[in-house]
């Protein structure tokens, strides 16, 4: 359930960073979202599951303002965004990053230019500072050796990781992952999942992960990143408390048919969920 209005205001300690409140959307006669409500708490992960066409990606696009809902309210960082124009949305997007399906890298730009795009084009940062930040982000992702390559020279997994690097380069507080691991082999998918976990646990990024890959969804929910005394980062099984912070949402026919944590989902007896999980 969405948080009460008093808790949506910026500055409120418990204010969720994203509130989706009774959102509806239809394209002509096709209803995509009937009545969808959920919240994302700061530093937490919400995982949206569902079959193809269930409205998962559209949910992310509504949060980002790429699509406008027909009805309902959408709040980001305490600001209502569902009726904002493109210009007002630019300031909202300053704290939002999105990783699109297939990466959506700019194919005429190098990895360096892709990752630093926003900093080069939309900020007053000096070229030296931008280059430093790009190298720092690519180093964090283990992609520094590809900095001068074109997107067409990268593998699918590398492209997704560059897309994550591009989305995190300007240090947004919220990251939206749209099928970030779809189409990748399990080993590459795990490397992408590890980046999602590292950003959440080490950088404090709140994230919404849209996927229909259950393995990746459970991996992100049940693992955490820890930095050792020597500075190395390890991905380890999450504590029960940490696991409970990851919320699962299952979309079906434009409605939320399940809401709970990983254990609730595993223990569900709902026939549809059982079919989905199997």
């Amino acid at each position, binding site marked *: 359930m969405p948080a009460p209005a008093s808790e949506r205001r910026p500055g409120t300690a418990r204010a969720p960073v994203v509130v989706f409140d009774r959102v509806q959307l239809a394209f002509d006669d096709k209803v995509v979202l009937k009545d969808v409500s959920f919240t994302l708490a700061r530093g937490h992960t919400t995982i949206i599951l569902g079959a193809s066409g269930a409205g998962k990606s559209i949910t992310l696009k509504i949060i*980002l303002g790429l699509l406008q809902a027909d009805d309902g309210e959408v709040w980001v960082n305490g600001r209502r965004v569902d009726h904002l124009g493109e210009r007002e949305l630019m300031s909202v997007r300053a704290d*939002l*990053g*999105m990783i699109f399906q297939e990466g959506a890298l700019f*194919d005429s730009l190098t990895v360096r230019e892709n990752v630093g795009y926003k900093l080069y084009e939309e900020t007053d940062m000096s070229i030296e500072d931008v280059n430093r930040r790009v190298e720092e982000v690519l180093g964090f992702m283990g992609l520094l050796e590809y900095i001068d390559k074109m997107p067409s020279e990268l593998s699918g997994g590398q492209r997704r990781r560059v897309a994550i690097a591009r*989305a995190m380069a300007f240090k947004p507080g919220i990251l939206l992952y749209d099928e970030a691991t779809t189409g990748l082999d399990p080993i590459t998918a795990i490397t992408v999942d590890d980046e999602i976990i590292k950003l959440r646990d080490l950088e404090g990024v709140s994230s919404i992960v849209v996927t229909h890959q259950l393995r990746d969804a459970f991996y992100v929910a049940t693992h955490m990143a820890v930095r050792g005394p020597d500075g190395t980062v390890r991905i380890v099984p999450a504590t029960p408390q940490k696991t409970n912070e990851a919320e699962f949402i299952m979309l079906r026919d434009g409605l939320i048919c399940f809401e709970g944590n990983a254990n609730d989902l595993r223990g569900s007896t709902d026939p549809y969920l059982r079919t989905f999980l199997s």
Partner: protein
Amino acid sequence: MRRVFAILNTRLKRAALEMQEYLYLTGATLRGFATPPFYRHDIIEQFDLIGIGTLTVVVLVGFFTGAALASQTGVTLDQFGARPVVGRLVSVTIIKELGPVMTALMLNGRVGSGIAAELGSMVVTDQINALRSLGTDPIRKLVIPRVLAGLLMAPALTVISDFVGVLGGWVVARFQLQVASGLYWSSVTQALFMADVQQGLIKPFVFGFTVTSIACYVGLRTTGGTQGVGRATTTAVVVGSVSIIALDFFVTQVLWKLLY
């Protein structure tokens, strides 16, 4: 009968919607000409791509258009013993009509199709959404540089095309029709009025804007994956070509009223 009206009604509504969306895009583009942010690097890049990139095609087409025009009209003028005035006919026809129209058609074929394909690919691969998510307005980043380059490079290319066309006419007049060079070049200027030159310079501004804005609009409205990109490219070229020919007629009528 009712079914025919229903289909007609749907198509008219769709056409009206398309026109409304196109006018919205052109309005946003015109506003963007005067208000920041400006993406200077992209503007310079488009000037190079659209201007320098189209130059060879425009020069070749201009030259052979002038040559063919002189060759064809020379035969007809011979029937009236007017072969020496072939330069008049070539210059007036090229500067007022063929130069602007042929240049715009070449621009449409080369640049219009490229813009529609490029922007269409960006739409279907979510690159446009990625731009928006990174805080960039696609109209300012992609449309304005292309339209501005089309608007300003079309007249420049037309002037070059006009000159090369008249030169092509001279080659045929001198070596095929055996008209003396001095006679050809003096007749080229004799028939031209300042209003003709103005007409020939105003039209390319309209055509350049139209070609690039239509291509951008069609590209940004692409749906349906790679097939959609192919459809968008074809649509941009067809709509752009028809618009050039139709606009040429209407702009000529307006300019006749204003300039003569």
